[in-house]
């Protein structure tokens, strides 16, 4: 049996979702954004809600996410995607609304909107892609940058030591990696909070299940934010090849940001 005999429509077992447009992703080779886009599109297609979905794209690498999803989209100001999603969901409660943000957008400039949207318990789905760095602006420190991690604005590594003694003693203090996902999980307004990854097929499958649940909850529910963090990579700004970046992610990002459900059906998961 030749390859040509196998490659026939009736034998197709996997292809990119029809809910993605034909526009090639502008993301760097190996970037997790593409994988996350793919599985969101698959979920929306499987749930059959493409004709009532409104997405909100961020400022950051995913700013043009609206070019790739064949659903209606609004592009938000930096950090304001949760406010935008709130605005839409409040006036169109029957539409399926999701925001898509990176770590700088969601956990630095948009912290206020993130926390209050979660605290109000808006019935929306929030996707948070955490790669520990600012991608679009060229690799500066993010709130989720690991301690010791070198970025364009922490060229000697992020230092998170509290200054010794009273006041500033000359040691740069960039603060600690911000665990925003754990933080919002403690708010009564969040229903489902989980942290996933997409660096290998098994984790992509898990992440897809999580995203599906996050949308199903919205479709079937009346309130409560469904929040999915994806620990991802930034090969270009980590200055690694894609495969090496994924390995670095497993060895360095995951110990700081462990994977798994944090809150399910409004209840914190016991560790």
């Amino acid at each position, binding site marked *: 049996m030749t390859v040509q005999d196998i490659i026939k429509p009736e034998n197709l077992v996997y292809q990119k979702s029809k809910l993605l*447009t034909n526009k090639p992703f502008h993301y760097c080779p190996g970037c997790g954004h593409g994988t996350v886009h793919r599985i969101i599109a698959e979920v929306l297609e499987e749930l059959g809600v*493409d*004709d*009532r*979905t*409104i997405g*909100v*794209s961020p400022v950051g690498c995913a*700013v*043009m996410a*609206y*070019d790739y*999803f*064949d*659903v*209606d*989209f*609004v*592009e*938000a*100001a930096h950090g*304001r995607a949760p*406010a*935008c*999603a*709130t*605005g*839409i969901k*409040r*006036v*169109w409660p029957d*539409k*399926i609304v999701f925001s898509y943000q990176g770590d700088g957008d969601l956990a630095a400039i948009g912290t*206020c*909107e993130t926390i*209050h949207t979660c605290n109000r318990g808006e019935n929306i789905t929030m996707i948070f892609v955490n790669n520990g760095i600012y991608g679009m602006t060229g690799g500066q420190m993010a709130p989720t940058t690991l301690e010791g991690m070198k970025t364009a604005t922490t060229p000697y590594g992020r230092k998170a030591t509290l200054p010794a003694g009273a006041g500033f003693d000359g040691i740069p203090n960039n603060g600690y990696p911000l665990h925003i996902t754990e933080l919002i999980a403690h708010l009564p307004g969040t229903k489902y909070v989980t942290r996933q990854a997409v660096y290998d097929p098994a984790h992509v499958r898990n992440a897809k299940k999580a995203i599906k649940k996050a949308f199903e909850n919205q479709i079937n529910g009346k309130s409560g934010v469904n929040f999915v963090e994806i620990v991802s990579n930034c090969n270009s700004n980590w200055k690694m090849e894609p495969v090496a970046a994924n390995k670095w992610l497993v060895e360095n990002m995951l110990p700081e940001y462990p994977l798994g459900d944090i809150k399910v059906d409004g209840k914190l998961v016991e560790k």
Partner: protein
Amino acid sequence: MGELKLMKGNEALAEAAIRYGADAYFGYPITPQSEVIEYLSEQNPYERTGMVVLQAESELAAINMVYAAGAAGKRVMTSSSSPGVCLKQEGLAYIAGAEVPCVFADVVRGGPGLGTIQPSQADYFQNTKGGGNGDYRNIVLAPSSVQEMCDFVALGFDLAFKYRMAACILSDGAIGQMMEKVILPEQKARMTEEEIKAKYPWALTGRARGTQHRVITSLDLDSAKMEEHNRALQRKYKEVEANETRYEMINCEDAEYVFVAYGSSARIAQKSVQLGREAGLKVGLLRPITLWPYPTKAIDDLIKKGVKGFLSVELSCGQMIEDVRLACNGRVKAEHFGRVGGIIHTPEEVLEAMKKQIIGE
């Protein structure tokens, strides 16, 4: 005939939004306009019409809620006062760039910074000249009575949706806080989903199968497209200038000297006109109703009819005077008179300023 009521300006604004069939109000409390959200919360418009009222975590969040809900085709309003409107400039620039309709009210207080909670008109520049980034305009309506606080909500929404841009109701603490009788309009129905889809094909309502998905964005990295987008915005603004400039003239038929004043200043200047006429002076009042587009042509017409000078009367240190002078283009004298810091000028001192600065001895 609508219902006659005694109301505060801020309350009239809020009631007008409910009666217009607005879909949502997103706001954040700030003096002197907190009555807007308080009145809306007390009225429970969700029970009356299905209108959503939400107290946001900040002015920033509120304007971005407005931006996205407006992008989704709904009639959405917010209101604030000067320092809060600073925070809203981010969203307003996006609203301009992405061509989203909305109404926002600025009940102006004194500045700069935290300034004072007393009435002011010091945010003329902020609202008429942009304030956010980029080449853009907002329609700016200046009510000078509680009735206009009410009426300009409907006018603002009509213009905002006609041109897909923000309409600002530029009020001040005096107009917002004072009580006057007002004739309220009949309750209009909110638009249905079918009506929105039919009337606003650009609105994000979920793309129908087999049709192109819609994107509301202010971003385009293609320079040629971005230049054309900017040109298209400017063409739209020219159209607004041609069609929507509004003003009122009082005693201008034979006037030699004209006060130019808007909002609460116009009320005082109107009294100054009366005092001047009683003293035998041929004075009149030009009251711009739209501050953008500015009634430049009205000033031009007055000069052609023989007006020899203008006094721009403002509760600011001289902002609108720049537009008056641009319209005069050096042909006649144009000066500014203003009180600030929460002090409101008296009709007598306004008339005195006209005599001293324009008419001369």
